[in-house]
């Protein structure tokens, strides 16, 4: 059986433009080091580097990682808003990567992958009423016209529990939760099979967040969609996702069933991430694990070195000389680390503390 979405060795680098201070500095340093003249190739920011993932029909997959790790770029690649440098995107067995992004916007496949954007306020046209925003994809993607169009808009408003009398309002006349509903209704308009949710609730108060999360979970059950759910909030990902992918500097470094990854993280980065989740449950403070060192720069990183090098609690020359690949560590759980989980060579006290704390909690 083929997965709904299969992404193979997807890669996206951004050349650093000649204008930013950072780019100029990087270029200058490269010239100094290589001794070459000013004609060297531009520096490349490795946003998404050789990433392979899959999403099954009806599955909800979480994508977590720190800001700048490439999760939004990966989402934009999958949503076909930007073009990859290399790699394949198969959707229902068809290769979507062939068509350039600007042509994809008009292809019949466009409606199958839709996105709910991070900031409901910024992603709605301020000059469109709620009805107009929801109607837009219906007109463009499935060419609905006339009465049928407005009936469908009303249906969608009902689906996301947006009172119909609000449909004539503009974004500035709506509350945060109401705008989030408009954004969701718009994404659902064309019956997508994969919904990409980029931090859908990060701008909302907890009281409203709970409503929206429940709404999304209900819609997924009702409509049988798949989710690619991007969030910093690991507590939310745990609630919403079957499987979770952890990204670090352009690479997927851990993947597995959500509960299992949170209970027994194998990669040291995931371990730090999980132990940094603030929680309202009492737990001993000394048990938290902290990352040392500075992250490796995403600009032209050493292809042999582990991206996590310099921050891990246990590392050897092998971490510097040989990039670890995603390999199975536990049942259904993969990690890209030479020393995953407990098989540490020089286990740090922090880790031991963390485990002790974790077992205390249980």
């Amino acid at each position: 059986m083929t997965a709904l979405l299969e992404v193979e060795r997807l890669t996206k680098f951004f050349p650093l433009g000649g204008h930013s201070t950072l780019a100029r500095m990087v270029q200058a340093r490269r010239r100094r080091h290589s001794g070459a003249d000013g004609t060297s190739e531009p520096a490349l920011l490795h946003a998404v580097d050789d990433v392979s993932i899959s999403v099954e029909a009806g599955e909800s997959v979480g994508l977590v990682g720190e800001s700048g790790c490439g999760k939004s770029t990966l989402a934009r690649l999958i949503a076909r808003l930007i073009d990859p440098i290399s790699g394949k995107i198969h959707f229902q067995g068809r290769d979507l990567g062939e068509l350039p992004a600007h042509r994809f916007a008009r292809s019949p496949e466009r409606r199958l992958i839709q996105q709910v954007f991070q900031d409901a306020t910024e992603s709605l046209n301020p000059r469109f009423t709620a009805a107009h925003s929801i109607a837009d994809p219906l007109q463009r993607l499935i060419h609905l016209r006339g009465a049928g169009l407005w009936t469908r808009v009303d249906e969608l408003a009902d689906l996301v529990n947006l009172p119909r009398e609000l449909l004539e309002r503009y974004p500035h006349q709506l509350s945060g939760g109401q705008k989030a509903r408009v954004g969701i209704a718009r994404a659902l308009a064309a019956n997508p099979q994969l919904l990409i949710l980029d931090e859908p609730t990060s701008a909302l108060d907890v009281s409203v967040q709970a409503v929206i999360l429940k709404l999304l979970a209900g819609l997924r059950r009702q409509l049988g969609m798949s989710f690619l759910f991007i969030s910093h909030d690991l507590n939310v990902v745990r609630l919403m996702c079957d499987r979770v992918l952890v990204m670090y500097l352009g690479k997927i470094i851990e993947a597995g069933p959500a509960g299992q990854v949170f209970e027994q993280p194998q990669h040291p980065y995931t371990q730090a991430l999980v132990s940094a989740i603030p929680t309202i449950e009492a737990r001993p403070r000394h048990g938290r694990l902290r990352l040392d060192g500075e992250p490796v720069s995403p600009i032209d990183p050493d292809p042999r070195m582990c991206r996590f090098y310099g921050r891990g609690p246990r590392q050897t020359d092998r971490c510097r000389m040989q990039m670890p690949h995603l390999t199975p560590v536990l049942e259904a759980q993969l990690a890209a680390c030479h020393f995953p989980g407990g098989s540490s060579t020089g286990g740090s006290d922090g880790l031991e503390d963390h485990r002790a704390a974790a077992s205390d909690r249980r």
Partner: protein
Amino acid sequence: MNDVPLLEVAELSVEFRTRLGTVKALEQVDLSLDRGEIIAVVGESGSGKSVTAYSIMGILDAAAHLTAGRIMFGGLDLLRVAEAELANMRGRELAMIFQNPRGALNPIRPIGRQIGDILRRHAPMPRAGVKRRAIELLMQVRIPDAERRYAAYPFELSGGMCQRVGIAMALACEPALLIADEPTTGLDVTTQAAIMDLIVELARKRRMATLLITHDLGLAAEYCEHIVVMHAGHVVESAPVGELFAKPRHPYTAKLIASTPHGAGQLDSLTPIPGGLPDLRGELPPCRYRGRCERYTSVCDQAPLPRVQVDPRHVVACRDPL
């Protein structure tokens, strides 16, 4: 503990006079903070958290009127201090981390120089010293490549990086009181933990007091000793962390806890809070939560709203606490 708290806000009421009527943004807000203590103010947006912070800093909008109350800081009534003196205190004694990091920075001045400006404003220093200290501060908030980033403009940095610059600026002169208004919103959990650890360390080492304004109950639980819960301009509950989570007494606090996702819970156990904040213009009932409360009875309409002291450090503003 000390006899006199470092900061004491007592019965503070603030109104905004707008064309569409008077907005009663704060009513009889009480809070106190000792040296070295970290307390959190939590609540939904619009509950008056930021207005409280701005009142303490003396940077409220011109439309705001402080109609009652006082703000004592180290024995000094901040509401009676002349603006020039207050300007000398801001940055050195009182510092604030603002919610919108990019908006709080000067867009046309390199970030390192903006930090230097604060250092020089409060203590004359040689140029090289200022630069060295600014870079040190950038490193302290974990900005990679601090030496190069010193010369970067805000637009060249991500939101999270700008946030860290704002934090470095607030901590530059080692203030006695730090007001952190959603300091880690938009930062990932590992950076959030590093920043909060830095604040905790400063609290411990130099007895810096911190008022953490957040809507993240988890963050408040993890780093603070005491939590003040606000709703529609009222402090509805104020209690030590353990007690607040173990035994919330105000119905709103209980709802807030139940709506927060946490480790062990399931989606079904999340319960949203019904209704929204009331319109703060015009006549308001004594209890501003009454429209959303399941325990509402006619007794709740009797003025004034009681402040029940259920424990020496635990106050709840409810006629019928849980």
